[in-house]
């Protein structure tokens, strides 16, 4: 029978209604046959009611988080618009930022200004693809020697909804606020990570088994051991040390389980060599030092500010080389591009740069400088995707990790749909880490992703320090499940 050509008998229909409680009048005084029919219908419906599932409890957690975020936004809007004094202060702050931008722009026009912000046209002179992506989207300042800083773009260029539209939208004031907010959240997450009880509770709230924590701490011990060994042997790479340091902090084991010395040693190792690092290594090292600064603040924050600014300036204006004709500061045709934006740079470094530049304004780096550098890196990632195929999971995950606000999350998510955590864990541990740290709970697929991520706890520990640390970072994403903060009251 494939269609409803034949209809149910009237008695049977009334019995169904009665069994459902839709019709309470037909049963009293009904004949035995009808009562039996109702009973039969009720049994059938009860059988079907057995089909159900056990909710993981994740939905209310995620929604509490979403409501909190919404209330924050509401609160901020209310605060901003509360009094004319606040409005005046806001206008003054924006005016100050714009003025600073204009002054810097004037500086940028002079050779060898205090901050070496080379003109964008020079930075991208030999790179039409990159220039198309950036300067075509946003021309700050006047034509000719387009300056990297300046007033916000005209209103008609804003909010076009596409990544390009997003690139055109620099608002230094907003960037500072966003960076401050991100930093505050990160700090709270670290506070949570350092509590064993909170970690276990987070895992449970995400639907995981509490013994996942044991596996994570065992993995942290392995990472700490290898990190120590490689530092002793002098074989440690910047990427390995940086990932190891970040993983130990993320796993929360750095203070309570005796890995504090290892963390301190790795931190010192990275700090000491900062001035000698290549741009790619510097980005990776700074990502780790940023985590340290989030936790420690103080001098660590100053260090991040100094070197993040240096890196941002280098990204925008690569070190001037003597041109063919001997003119200092002129680019030989087709040559100048920041080393970070070269195709040889590991994808992980690009993602790290995105994260560092996003947080940098919170450490005192000029927001427009940080944002412009971040946009250049984002544009380079797009360039790579165009050149190397837009299905590469490492590039897509890097986009989500460092530049989620500049790309169409839904589109990137669609391209990544087939890359489940178990597949990434084979060759792309760093991409796994990036993906795990860029998921937001109210998004489609989040619940499934978290479950699959937890299943990776059964994998053997990768041999390479960087891979093991990236796996640890991925598994530790469960500790900072958004929403857990509000449940535990840490954010209150």
């Amino acid at each position, binding site marked *: 029978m494939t269609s*409803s050509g034949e*209809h149910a008998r009237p008695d049977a229909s009334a019995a169904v209604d009665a*069994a459902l*409680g839709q019709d309470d009048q037909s049963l009293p005084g009904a004949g035995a046959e009808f009562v039996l029919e109702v009973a039969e219908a009720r049994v059938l*419906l009860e059988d079907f009611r057995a089909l159900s*599932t056990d909710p993981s409890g994740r939905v209310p957690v995620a929604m509490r988080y979403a409501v909190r975020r919404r209330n924050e936004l509401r609160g901020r809007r209310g605060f901003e618009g509360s009094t004319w004094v606040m409005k005046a202060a806001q206008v003054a702050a924006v005016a100050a930022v714009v003025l600073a931008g204009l002054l810097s722009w004037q500086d940028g026009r002079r050779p060898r200004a205090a901050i070496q912000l080379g003109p964008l046209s020079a930075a991208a002179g030999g790179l039409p693809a990159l220039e198309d992506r950036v300067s075509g989207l946003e021309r700050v300042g006047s034509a000719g020697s387009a300056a990297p800083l300046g007033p916000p773009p005209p209103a008609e260029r804003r909010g076009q909804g596409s990544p390009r539209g997003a690139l055109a939208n620099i608002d230094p004031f907003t960037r500072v606020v966003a960076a401050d907010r991100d930093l505050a959240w990160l700090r709270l997450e670290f506070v949570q990570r350092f509590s064993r009880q909170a970690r276990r509770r987070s895992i449970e709230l995400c639907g995981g088994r509490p013994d996942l924590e044991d596996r994570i701490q065992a993995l942290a011990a392995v990472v700490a051991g290898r990190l120590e060994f490689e530092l002793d042997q002098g074989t440690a790479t910047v990427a390995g040390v940086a990932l190891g340091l970040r993983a130990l902090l993320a796993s929360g084991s750095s203070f309570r389980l005796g890995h504090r010395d290892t963390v301190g040693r790795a931190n010192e190792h990275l700090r000491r060599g900062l001035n000698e690092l290549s741009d790619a290594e510097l980005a990776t090292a700074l990502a780790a030092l940023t985590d340290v600064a989030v936790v420690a603040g103080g001098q660590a924050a100053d260090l991040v500010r100094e070197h993040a600014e240096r890196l941002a300036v280098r990204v925008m204006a690569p070190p001037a080389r003597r041109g063919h004709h001997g003119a200092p500061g002129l680019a030989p045709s087709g040559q100048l591009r920041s080393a970070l934006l070269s195709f040889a740079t590991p994808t992980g470094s690009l993602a790290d740069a995105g994260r560092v530049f996003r947080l940098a304004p919170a450490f005192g780096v000029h927001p427009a400088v940080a944002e412009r550098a971040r946009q250049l890196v984002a544009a380079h990632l797009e360039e790579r995707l165009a050149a190397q195929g837009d299905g590469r999971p490492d590039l897509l995950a890097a986009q989500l990790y460092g530049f989620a606000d500049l790309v169409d999350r839904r589109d990137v998510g669609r391209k990544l749909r087939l890359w489940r955590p178990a597949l990434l864990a084979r060759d792309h541990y760093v991409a796994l880490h990036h993906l795990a740290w860029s998921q937001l709970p109210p998004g489609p697929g989040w*619940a*499934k992703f978290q479950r699959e991520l937890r299943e990776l706890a059964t994998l053997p520990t990768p041999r390479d320090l960087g891979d093991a640390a990236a796996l640890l970072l991925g598994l530790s994403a469960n500790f900072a499940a958004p929403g857990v903060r509000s449940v535990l009251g840490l954010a209150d």
Partner: protein
Amino acid sequence: MGRSAPSRSSSPPAGGVADLLARFRDGDADAFRSIVDEYQGRLVQFFFRLCWDRDRAEDLAQELFMKLLRGAGRYQPEGKLSTFIFRVATNLWIDHYRARRPTPRLYSLDQVRHGRRSDAHEQQDAEPGPIERAIDGEEKQRLRQALESLTEPHRLVFELAVYQELRYADIGQVLGIPVGTVKSRMHNSVKALRDVMAESRDQGEARDANASFRRRVAR
């Protein structure tokens, strides 16, 4: 009559609960928590029985709550909140279902059961894995397959009437169809399910008889 339906939606909940979304719109953040607490279980089950995937069901429930959260500012109470929420849920499911369907639907609105079995299994993710099969047991499998054999319009009516215990009139509002259509879909669904269960039992018995015959021959 008969079954105890603790939260039948026909009667408006007391204490202004029906206006929870309006209260949230007006700035009461706790009101949204109450909505989540009250509806999350029902919605997860609702979506689960449509897609047979708990994770996806939870994602859809989250998406629905996010829609409510974002759209709360424009919310104008008209009727019961449960009716409103299930209307949004139904639309969300239909959008989701259509987005995932590789082919347009090929059944008429009057059709109760899918013509081909494969139609009921178009969504590859909905297929239960071996572990789920083992856990579910044969009877649940049969029930599940019977439910899957219903066409989408009938399945939605069945879900809303049997599991969510909405009145026919409310279901009509949720789905935007007359009450008479709701009734006929419900009755035809029950009849179709009875038929499928009977067919399935017959097949099971025939299989058992066949297996027992083979065992005897083998001996």
